């Protein structure tokens, strides 16, 4: 299965994803510009992505824990999600997301 990830420069990448993997892990392992500093513990919000509007409803809604972490992204939008909280499944084959600036490896400070 595949996901389509637009990076911070606007370039779209077609990435191969595996069932059960977190979208963050796929993006990180393909070497795109994602910080993901807590490693997927839903504790840092540096894997922030904007989900393509067509896909927003197909995802499980964010948990309270994810909402709390999204409070700490300075560039929140209505379609903001943490990519470490999106698990790949057949239903998400073709998922489109855009990497937020706040997920850049050199973001902040």
């Amino acid at each position, binding site marked *: 299965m595949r996901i389509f990830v637009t990076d911070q420069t606007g370039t779209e990448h077609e990435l191969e994803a595996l069932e059960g993997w977190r979208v963050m892990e796929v993006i990180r392992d393909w070497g795109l510009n994602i910080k993901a*500093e807590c*490693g997927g513990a839903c504790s*840092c919000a540096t894997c922030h992505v904007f989900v393509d509007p067509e896909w927003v409803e197909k995802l499980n809604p964010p948990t309270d824990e994810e909402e709390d972490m999204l*409070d*700490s992204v*300075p*560039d929140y939008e209505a379609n903001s999600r943490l990519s470490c909280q999106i698990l790949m499944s057949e239903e998400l084959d073709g998922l489109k997301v855009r990497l937020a600036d*706040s997920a850049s490896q050199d973001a902040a400070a």
Partner: protein
Amino acid sequence: MSGNEIVTDVVIIGAGPVGLFAVFELGLVDLKCHVIDILDRPGGQCAELYPEKPIYDIPAFPEISGQGLTDNLMKQIAPFGAEFHFSQMVTNVERLEDGSFRVTTDADEVFVAKVIVIAAGGGSFQPKRPPVPEIEQYEGKSVFYAVRKMDDFRDQDLVIVGGGDSALDWTLNLEPLARSLTLVHRRDEFRGHADSVNKMRKLVEDGKINFVMGQLGRLEGADGQLSEVFLKTAGGEMGIPATRLLPFFGLTMKLGPVADWGLDLHDNALIKVDTERFETSEPGIFAIGDINWYPGKLKLILSGFHEGALMSQAAKRIVHPDAKVVFQYTTSSTSLQKKLGVA
């Protein structure tokens, strides 16, 4: 130089698990350490980002929290009496004529050490900067990411942004001082302690502060002096007269000044080391844990512990070049057990 220099064998930069365990390994070879960290307590990333979350891959701990691991490490290294210097960042490292280093922090502490161990994980924690155009020109003058002196906010029109404890605590603490105070958060739910949330809501009810649901948009002002903060809200753009802005979006890590020390880096972000000593391109400066890179590197606490053990053998040879390094086990060596206070 001033007489206030702290002279020690080793300065460790970073008080995360790997920096703490380095104190242990260096202690076993009789090296005295001072540990510097930008946070106000030990534990680094695992205590700051996930103190309560279980870690499953520490040997002999099927499950342990970030805080639990930190507490245990502090207990384990206690016999070696390392001294900690919290809430400060190393800003400068300079090589002295005799080969040792002078290390300066932003709290103006000065150390002279024969060995430096960088155990700074993902770098130093820095506040997240909101993506607001030209915010840099206001920083330090009317935009602050922390409150150092409450009096700087007296009689100011203050806008605080965020939904966690920092935003709530400073809302409550600065309300009596500020001329006006507006709290901005993207939703009407807060991550802070229930008691703080209740107190904040009472202030809103009593008309002492304003709460606006929205996000930071742009700033207006001149010469670094803010005059108005514009928010993006469901009803469109909204301007609030403001002379001070405090955005609280938590912390993230940056390599920080380490990047300027002339060490060979990998991908401009990680410090290259050898796998025999974990020494950087600069003799006497070592890098262990998540901040280093070598072929096959795994970013695991476990790896950092291993790297600390090998580093300590090499550090010993630098600090005491004439001493014979004898490898010993804590299970059988009376000398090691004496150091640990158990024999």
